[in-house]
């Protein structure tokens, strides 16, 4: 079978092998066999070339297969026909020899057998008696049948390559009559088979030729572009080639394609130009970008340099700062860095510092307290004043300020430690001096006269003044002068007293006048006495006020931060003896965390002593077991409250507004300026004093409201400056 591409192989060789180094298929390689060639093909051929070749191959295979099937079928049919006709011949021969066998006439048998010699298939035949001896036999060519056969020979057909022996057993009335054996030749069958083979071969040859012809007819147009494209490509590559003349270069059959390609070529040229333009643009773009990038790099370098410079500056600022500074890990409070000033000020070396924490540096503070002080969300904040220990064990006061910074990738605090030991010492000295000054001024007692005396004495002095001026008026306008006038009148009429006192004399009126005058003088005297009495009382009052002011000699107007309980302690100490002798117990309840009160110690002490004394006196008639004075200390925001509750006689409702009035008292020996003074003093220090009672026998509650300390520094109160 010829390979489909063998004959015109040269024509079909690819114009542009995919791989120029690949071996070109040659006639020699074609001789290597169909399979190898097919492999070569499949290996090297382009898909376009492979498809038609494969089609041809498949067509040949189909034709061959069809031929083989036809031939096999024919052969089988012929063989079966031959067999059947041989079998039929055997039967016919057997029937023809039945009678002769019965009669035993050999001649008749021979004649019957010879009658079959004309049969094309007939080769030889023989009739045998029932004992196997032959009755007659005939043959076309040489005698092939035996003279004697086995009496037991069974009926059947025996096939040979060229002959078919058919053995027939003849029976009559259940007994064996004899045998008839016929040999039919298969030569005719072979002849016809050969005939068929030749025909088939011819047919196959014709079919193959047709396929080849068709392949040749249709393959070139399919493969042509592959060949021609080479030329087209060459043409298309040549910039000199004019448009519209592709036929000069390529087969006219593909000139259409060539034209299209030419069009494509133009398009490609345009694209190329565009690409070139784009490339140019891209190039300039890249250049520009590169320039920008370089500039950025340069800028970054500058920035980095600046940063490095500023970092150095800051480092220098840190290192050479005269204020001791630490950088501290917030978690462990360990020092990460310390500056020269810290080393110099504290006496520890850098290495020693690195092993220390802020807690170990701090003296007299709980480590938890220290770490809590730094727990703030604020970026920078004051941490307050602490005691730090120097290497020489000296304790110094430092004010710490913390700022959050990122150091070596960790959030740390930079801590500035300002030594305030000297400042604190000076401040203490200043306070000391201030106190001394206060003592001195208290001794001088100037300020006290200004406030207390002016107000309290002022009021009484007013009454004294009024009384004195009324007395003066009385004396000035006294009718006592009438006595002298009477005496003068009598003296003038001394010469004629009888007529003067006579029935017509003026003397008649004198007794009436004198009686009226006596009455008047008595009234005047009574009024004067009354006024004098009041005057005396008032003067005694003034003496009392002065005496009391002296006994409560105090410094006025110095406001300082004082704990409320210390104020109460002071007051209780002053009246301790009184309380003990009266059997009064005092219960003090202070709210925890009570801040200091911003007030005047002496004024508040005076108020408290006054209130405690009042409470004590109020409980004189209370059962001895129930004489309890409860003092509660509380606060709300800007004010502290000292609440004194007694279980004494209480205050009647109508007196509640009067208890603070000047001169109001319910005590037999009282003057009525105790609560008045206390309320005024409370007002002077920015507070208030209020009293409450549910009535007689229910006890009374006095509340002293005082401002809470906001600034520590002592200040001279406004009240005292006004008083001066």
């Amino acid at each position, binding site marked *: 079978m010829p390979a489909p591409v063998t004959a015109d192989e040269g024509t079909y060789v690819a114009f542009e092998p995919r791989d120029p180094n690949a071996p070109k298929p040659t006639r020699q390689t074609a001789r290597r066999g169909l399979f190898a060639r097919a492999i070569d093909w499949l290996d090297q051929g382009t898909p376009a070339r492979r498809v038609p070749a494969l089609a041809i191959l498949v067509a040949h295979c189909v034709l061959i297969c069809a031929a083989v099937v036809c031939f096999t079928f024919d052969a089988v049919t012929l063989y079966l026909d031959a067999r059947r006709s041989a079998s039929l011949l055997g039967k016919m021969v057997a029937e023809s020899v039945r009678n002769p066998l019965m009669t035993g006439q050999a001649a008749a048998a021979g004649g019957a057998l010879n009658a079959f010699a004309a049969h094309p298939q007939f080769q030889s035949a023989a009739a045998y008696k029932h004992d196997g001896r032959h009755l007659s036999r005939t043959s076309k060519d040489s005698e092939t049948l035996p003279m004697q056969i086995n009496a037991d020979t069974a009926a059947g057909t025996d096939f040979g390559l060229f002959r078919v022996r058919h053995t027939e057993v003849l029976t009559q009335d259940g007994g064996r009559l004899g045998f008839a054996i016929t040999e039919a030749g298969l030569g005719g069958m072979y002849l016809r088979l050969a005939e068929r083979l030749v025909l088939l071969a011819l047919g196959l040859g014709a079919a193959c030729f047709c396929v080849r012809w068709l392949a040749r007819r249709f393959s070139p147009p399919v493969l042509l572009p592959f060949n021609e494209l080479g030329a087209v490509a060459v043409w298309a590559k040549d910039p000199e080639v004019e448009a519209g003349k592709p036929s000069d270069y390529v087969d006219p059959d593909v000139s259409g394609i060539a034209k299209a390609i030419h069009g494509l070529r133009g398009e490609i040229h345009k694209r190329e130009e565009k690409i070139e333009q784009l490339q140019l643009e891209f190039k300039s773009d890249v250049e520009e970008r590169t320039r920008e990038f370089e500039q950025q790099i340069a800028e970054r370098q500058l920035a980095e340099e600046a940063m490095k410079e500023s970092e150095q500056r800051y480092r220098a600022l840190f290192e050479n700062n005269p204020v001791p500074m630490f950088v501290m890990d917030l978690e462990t409070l360990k020092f990460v860095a310390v500056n020269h000033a810290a080393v110099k000020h504290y006496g520890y070396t850098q290495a020693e510092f690195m092993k220390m924490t802020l807690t170990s540096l701090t003296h007299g503070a709980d480590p938890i307290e220290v770490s809590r002080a730094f727990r703030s969300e604020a970026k920078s904040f004051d941490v307050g004043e602490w005691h730090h220990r120097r290497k020489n064990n000296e304790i110094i006061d430092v004010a710490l300020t913390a700022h959050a910074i990122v150091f070596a990738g960790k959030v740390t605090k930079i801590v500035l430690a300002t030594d305030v030991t000297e400042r604190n010492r000076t401040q203490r000295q200043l306070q000391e001096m201030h106190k001394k000054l206060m003592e001195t001024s208290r001794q001088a007692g100037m300020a006290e006269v200004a406030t207390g005396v002016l107000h309290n004495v002022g009021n009484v002095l007013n009454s004294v003044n*009024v009384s004195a001026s009324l007395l003066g008026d009385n004396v000035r306008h006294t009718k006592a002068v009438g006595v002298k006038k009477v005496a003068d009148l009598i003296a003038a009429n001394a010469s004629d007293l009888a007529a003067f006192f006579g029935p017509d004399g003026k003397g008649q009126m*004198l007794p009436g006048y004198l009686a009226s005058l006596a009455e008047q003088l008595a009234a005047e005297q009574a009024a004067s006495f009354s006024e004098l009495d009041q005057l005396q009382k008032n003067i005694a009052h003034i003496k009392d006020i002065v005496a009391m002011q002296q006994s409560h000699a105090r410094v006025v107007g110095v406001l300082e931060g004082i704990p409320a309980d210390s104020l109460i302690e002071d007051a209780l100490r002053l009246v301790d003896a009184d309380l003990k002798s009266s059997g009064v117990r005092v219960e003090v309840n202070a709210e925890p965390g009570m801040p200091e009160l911003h007030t005047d110690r002496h004024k508040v002490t005076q108020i408290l002593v006054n209130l405690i004394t009042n409470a004590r006196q109020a409980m004189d008639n209370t059962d001895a077991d129930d004489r309890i004075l409860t003092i509660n200390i509380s606060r709300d925001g800007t004010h502290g409250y000292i609440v004194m509750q007694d279980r004494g006689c209480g205050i009647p409702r109508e007196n509640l507004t009067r208890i603070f009035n000047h001169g109001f008292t319910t005590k037999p020996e009282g003057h009525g300026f105790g609560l008045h003074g206390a309320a005024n003093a409370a007002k002077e220090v920015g507070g208030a004093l*209020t009293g409450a009672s549910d009535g007689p026998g229910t006890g009374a509650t006095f509340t002293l409201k005082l401002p809470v300390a906001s600034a520590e520094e002592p200040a001279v109160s406004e009240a005292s400056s006004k008083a001066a």
Partner: protein
Amino acid sequence: MNINRRILIIDDNRAIHEDFKKILSPTVAANDKLNSLEGQLFGESAEPATAEKFEISSAYQGRDGFELVKEREAAGTPFAVAFVDVRMPPGWDGVETINHIWTVAPKMQIVICTAFSDYSWEQIVRQLGKSDRLLILRKPFDPVEVQQLAFNLTEKWSKLNA
């Protein structure tokens, strides 16, 4: 002219009230009978009675005084003059009381009494405004001063309200 002689004293100190009463409405009245006898006997004309009587009302706390002022204004018998103390614990002080009084009786003449300068004149002016209705009387005061104030201010009020 009918002169309004109603005066209100607001002071927490009762002794001061007594003082005012003594000055402004003396109790020792002139003995008319004695005076006429004197005239007949000695031939002298009796001195004219100069003591003009004032109607004195008292309040011991600023708020009480203010209530009294309101009451009298409503009743149609308003006060002409008030003497007001500066310090009157525990309630309103004088300045606060005056502020309240002037809201109901704006024409009332007020004398502010003070034992010592709780407030300076500047402070009082700052709080009450510059006013011709206000005078300051310092304690201890002179009875004549009080009498003059009472006379002049009642007459001033009466003229203003005529």
